[in-house]
């Protein structure tokens, strides 16, 4: 991702962990808090640039220049404040990408109505997980390990560069498993900017600029990323 700047509202239950995870992944995180306790905590944890503002004040929000950030993440502990903040941000910055967390069933809908691009419902994802554990225990466990790159295996997005050997090939004709990676799905720009699973049964024509989502050993994925830059193999 080009712009790795994230504006994170809230350094409570969720914010603390998300902020640290993002920093580990090399993101530039700007923490914003309205609560004194959490603000001090953020400073202690090394977020020296953390700002304490009253998020209900529009001027304070405008001064943060949210338009310079790739994503605005609303994870304040106070869910009322979180909904209000989402609504304020949406009304002030219609182009921004807003991600919010919901701590209850009722809040999810409110956040969506307030204009969040994506709402992650704490209970919904957990309920899914329980269902998965009950029905596919092994697969669930493994998938989770893939997501957090445990055991070295994980997902990766790769954009097909110009002049890549993949350019012009059909997905049915290529077998990436010899490179130690599996193609899970892709964004075929010809068919619109949305993700499609390889198992949907469509034979895609690969072009430069398409995004591949692969799973594999991290080393192998890196090697593969280098490999696809080449014109031929």
């Amino acid at each position, binding site marked *: *991702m080009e712009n790795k700047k994230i504006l994170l509202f809230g350094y409570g*239950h*969720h914010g603390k*962990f*998300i902020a640290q*995870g*993002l920093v580990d*992944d090399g*993101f530039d995180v700007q923490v914003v808090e309205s609560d004194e306790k959490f603000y001090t905590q953020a400073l202690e944890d090394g977020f020296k640039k953390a700002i304490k503002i009253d998020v209900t004040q529009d001027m304070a929000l405008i001064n943060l220049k949210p338009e310079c950030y790739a994503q605005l*993440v609303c*994870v304040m502990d106070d869910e009322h404040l979180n909904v209000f903040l989402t609504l304020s941000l949406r009304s002030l910055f219609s182009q921004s990408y807003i*991600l919010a*967390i919901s701590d*209850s*069933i009722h809040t999810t809908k409110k956040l969506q109505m307030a204009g969040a691009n*994506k709402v*992650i*419902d*704490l*209970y*919904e*994802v*957990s*309920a*899914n*997980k*329980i*269902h*998965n*554990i*009950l*029905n*596919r*225990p*092994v*697969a669930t466990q*493994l*998938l989770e*390990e893939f*997501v957090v790159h445990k055991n070295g*295996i994980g*997902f990766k*997005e790769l954009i097909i560069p110009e002049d890549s050997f993949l350019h012009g090939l059909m997905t049915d004709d290529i077998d990436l*498993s010899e490179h*130690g*990676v*599996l*193609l*899970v*799905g892709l964004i075929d720009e010809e068919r619109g900017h949305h*993700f499609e*699973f*390889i*198992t*949907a*049964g469509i034979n895609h024509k690969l072009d430069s600029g398409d995004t591949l*989502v692969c*799973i*594999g*050993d991290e080393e192998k994925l890196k090697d593969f990323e280098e490999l696809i830059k080449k014109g031929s193999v």
Partner: protein
Amino acid sequence: MNKILLSIALYLHASKAYRQSKSFVRDLLTNANNPYKKYVDITIIFLIITSVVILIYEVKHPVPAWLDFYDIYIVSFVFSIEYLLRLWVHNDISESIISEQKESHFLGRAFSPIGVLGEGMLEKLKYMLTPSALIDLLAIFPAYRPLRVLRIFVLFRVLKLLRYTKSINQFTEVLSNKKFELLTLLFLLFFIVMTAGIAIYVMEEQTNPNIDSLFDAIYWALITISTVGYGDISPVTPEGRTISILIIISGIAMISFATSVIVSAFSEKLSELKESRIIEQVNKSKSFLLVCGYGQMTKMFFRHYGSEYDNYIILENAQDRMDQARKDGYEAIHEDASRYETLKKFDTEHSDITILCLTASDVENIYITLNAKSISKKIKVIARANDASMISKFEYAGADHILMPNKVANSMIHTAITQPTMYKAIHAILTGKSIARIDEIHTYGCEDIIGQTIKELEFKRAKLLFMGIQRGKDFIFNPSSSEVVQKGDILLVMGREISLEYFKSLYNGEC
């Protein structure tokens, strides 16, 4: 003599076959959860009903000899066997003789099995005198037709049905809770009937041609107080009529009192009865879910997946939440899952139980986990933990899966920020959307795939993406195409549900 008794006891104690058969019979006759008990019950009920039908039919029609034979010998034979078996499994005399011997040896006193034998016999005799055992015994006798009065024995066969009907047992159980009230009432009834009976006898014995004895008088009093009033005996003097008025009034009062006692006993017990029915129902299924707590998590779980689970019970110890769960249309009972007695009600022996500890309190969840594991290691526990510091405690308690809602949500947000394209993919996979299910193919259901190489398996044909093999504790990601599938392997694939089913049908498996 002592030695003979002891050696018999020791022989029985040592005999595995004896102990096994005894415990099998005991389980079969007394344990409601035994899978074969229902066949025994059905047989006995069938015998009872047929023998009663034969007797009723016989009143006006001649019956063939083989039916008589069936009624007199076969039914009685089966019933006597059942009676003897019940008597046999009631207690273990041999075990008490052995423990007595050990105790005497320990204390250095003279060993005498006679006392223990007597106690054991007394125990059996006590059992024989219980109403249900008496009914069983009397039901053995066939209704000997030539002697009309002996036909009464068929009534005992009908009474024997009581043992096999749950609702009658519950009825008596409910009434026994109101023993005090009912006894008071009965005593009062007895008192009034006797007083009124004696009074009418004294007043009208001379003048009333229908009253010849005290029995007639008491009979009249009972018929009047019960408001039945046949009218075969009626008072003729003003004094007698006054007594009638008084006992009719007290009769009405007493009937309404009795009715209210019984009704209140039932309404008090109604929810309990309902709950025990729910538990009974779920115990019959092979595997079921126990969901502890009806909070946001449970609500969300049921809202999304409730329709996919048939066998479950929600245990909630707050009345208002339990009511809410019932209002939402779910099977819920008002119980505290952290209590030993609560979980003990479920059949851990014959069913696979999975407990979801979803209450908002970690302490509560850990306690439920421990409680479940202390009852049976077989119970699978999926516990919710809110605090990361609790994870190790849950592991110690023995939870099979630990779920941290905060962590799950945080990692989803993390993925959504860092890998937005993949978020969709992972979210779809996690929620099991139809095109992107990651699923497991178990070799134990698909014997045909064992021994084949990955290359030979038709993943491509079924449009499945083969990801790897879980072998024991290891996961082999993207194994070479010459890898051979072994017994016990779990293959991890991604694809549509129909692809998966097609693949399974190719190898005629139900994995």
